[in-house]
């Protein structure tokens, strides 16, 4: 067995299928997309690609709608990181201490994650319904807060935050499970020692749980960032046009429209490349930032 493990040819043969699949379906499409972004092409095989250099990028960065989409997605990303990870981990810590109802709460908070986006969007559509028949509006009326009744998904001031709330509601269960998995791997002896040293309440979270859960926290943050930068489905279903005054337009929705609806494959590919570069840049920056703090090994 040891001999086989050291045989580079065998290692290569075993790795080859995975590498080929990775190359074909990950690397080559990315390279092709970057190549397409330097060309004009209406998506018809009979029409040859026309090299336009950086024109698609120039057009993109002088397009107000695209810049608005970048602004929206960055706001979406920042608020999502601030909401999804802390709420998910907070729920995880809370549930960890309720042994009796743990299973129920785990399932309850995780259910939104397994629902289809369409079902979730439909559900929230009823909640955000723009008249007094909407669940949220009727609730506000019952509380006597009639002045707060709103066209939640229509008003540019509230539409983006409404979508962020939907994404947060859907995702926190996932980060809660990651937190719970991290918590179960912390030895009781470490927590007991911490308690003996006076770490209780907030101190326990600050000095014991957060350092010990640093790796899952890092991973969750990266997942939120990359997930939000490519967000499409929730936005498309709840605000298919990108909201009033492009208040909820995001790059992925714009990319879909340019490539598939308008036949501007070059522009669509340029947007895809920007999303790719942005995802890579923000993920690496976040990792670097979070790596400054060393996680505790035990």
């Amino acid at each position: 067995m040891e001999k086989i493990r050291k045989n580079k040819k065998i290692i290569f043969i075993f790795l080859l299928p995975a590498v080929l699949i990775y190359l074909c379906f990950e690397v080559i499409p990315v390279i092709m997309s970057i190549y397409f972004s330097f060309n004009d092409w209406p998506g018809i095989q009979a029409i040859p690609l026309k090299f336009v250099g950086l024109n698609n990028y120039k057009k993109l960065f002088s397009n107000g709608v695209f810049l608005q989409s970048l602004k929206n997605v960055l706001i979406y990303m920042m608020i999502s990181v601030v909401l999804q990870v802390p709420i998910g981990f907070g729920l995880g810590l809370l549930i960890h201490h309720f042994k009796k109802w743990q299973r129920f709460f785990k399932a309850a908070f995780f259910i939104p994650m397994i629902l289809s986006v369409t079902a979730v969007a439909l559900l929230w559509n009823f909640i955000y319904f723009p008249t007094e028949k909407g669940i949220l509006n009727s609730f506000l009326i019952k509380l006597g807060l009639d002045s707060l009744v709103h066209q939640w998904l229509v008003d540019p001031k509230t539409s983006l935050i409404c979508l962020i709330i939907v994404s947060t509601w859907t995702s926190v269960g996932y980060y809660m499970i990651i937190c719970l998995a991290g918590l179960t791997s912390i030895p009781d002896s470490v927590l007991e020692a911490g308690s003996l040293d006076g770490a209780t309440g907030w101190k326990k979270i600050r000095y014991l749980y957060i350092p010990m859960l640093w790796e899952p926290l890092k991973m969750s943050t990266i997942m939120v960032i990359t997930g939000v930068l490519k967000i499409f489905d929730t936005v498309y279903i709840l605000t298919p046009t990108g909201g009033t005054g492009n208040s909820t337009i995001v790059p992925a929705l714009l990319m879909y429209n340019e490539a598939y609806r308008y036949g501007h494959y070059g522009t669509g590919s340029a947007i895809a490349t920007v999303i790719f570069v942005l995802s890579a840049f923000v993920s690496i920056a976040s990792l670097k930032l979070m790596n400054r703090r060393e996680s505790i090994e035990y």
Partner: protein
Amino acid sequence: MRKGKAMLSVALAAAMTLGSAVPALADGDKTKVVFMSRDSGDTPIAKVYEDQIARFMEENPDIEVQNDSIYEEAAYNNKLKVALSTGETPSIFYYPAIAGLTEWAQNGVLLDLTDSLDADQEWKDSFLDGALETYDLSAYGADGIYALPNELNVDAIFYNKALFEKAGITETPQTMDDLYDAIDKLVAAGITPFGVGGKNTWVMGHIFNNILAKRIGREGIIKLGTGEKKWTDEDVVECLQITKDLKEKGAFAEGFEGMDYNTQMNQFLTGEVAMISHSSPIIPEMLNSESEILDDISFFPFPYFTDKEEFKDTHVVYTSGWMISGTMSDEEKEATLKLVKYMTTKDAIQERMDAAMRVAPYKDIDAPEDAPQIFKDMVEYTGTISDSVGEYFDYDTCSTLVDTSRNGILNMMLSDTAEDTAATIQADIDANRPQ
């Protein structure tokens, strides 16, 4: 990495499409014809198509027809676009455009049907007068007829007779002034005049399109599409303003901008609102519902403006057509045309109308004897139309216009001025219309 995953889905979709949308020789040297429409599943029309295809294959054992129809719009468009980009154009397909077909026509993706139609005069004459001209792309730089009209979606205002009576409206509005009066009476009676699902931007887009047709006529709309007219022209801005003013007159429900199409239909079919602006395919949809007000539903043509009597008889009719691939071999082309002719015989069209109540652009097709009165009325009304026009964006080669204009109209209903909306739309056209 993330983008790579997105590309993977595209690659997989492409792989799946490649396996299905390729017109080629089928097993046993049969000639394969790929038919791709939006009618699939359990709908009455889909069943008729399946039956007709099955009968055609029985009568033509050397031809195999593959029905790749998809009902869901986004899935259909994605599949078609992947097929076009890989050069695997389906033999017969549907795409909602007229001027937008020009680039495809110029590059051989679509078959010019002029010769085939001229060679079979009887077939050519079976289409309603002027119907084939819809797909004559000469004005856009591609000489020829590049699709066969298959269905007509005739726009009208559907209304609830009981609610009209309750509000004291004794006659259906003929002019826009009559419509404004009706709106006032309905509002006074506490009834919401129009059900509008503004979230689906095409709903307001259709209302605006009717106003445009009644104020600038067919010629004006075509000039708007070819660039001879601009959206910032006074008469077009005026149409936008009239659309916006409908809201001020209380024509729509509070919060209509955030409601969707399903809510609009639900409001109408439960007798909550008095009118909807829609087109003829809504008739079978309404009749298949369990609404209790079906007997109270009727329709009237979109009213005209008394100061624009010259456009009184211009009616909005959306034509949906069949495009034929221009990249097929002679054998495939022959088989495809055979199928198309088979499906456009009088019997085949009548069968589809009987089963699904679709208005067809063919001569001598009547509503069945046992059809509901509203459908018979619609067929009769269609027969009276001599001047029709489609969607304004059908006549424009700017592919982004449909979204920019409809989103612009919705934004206008919320806050923007008609002038700003027109300027935004014109700027989009200037930036994106192919030169």
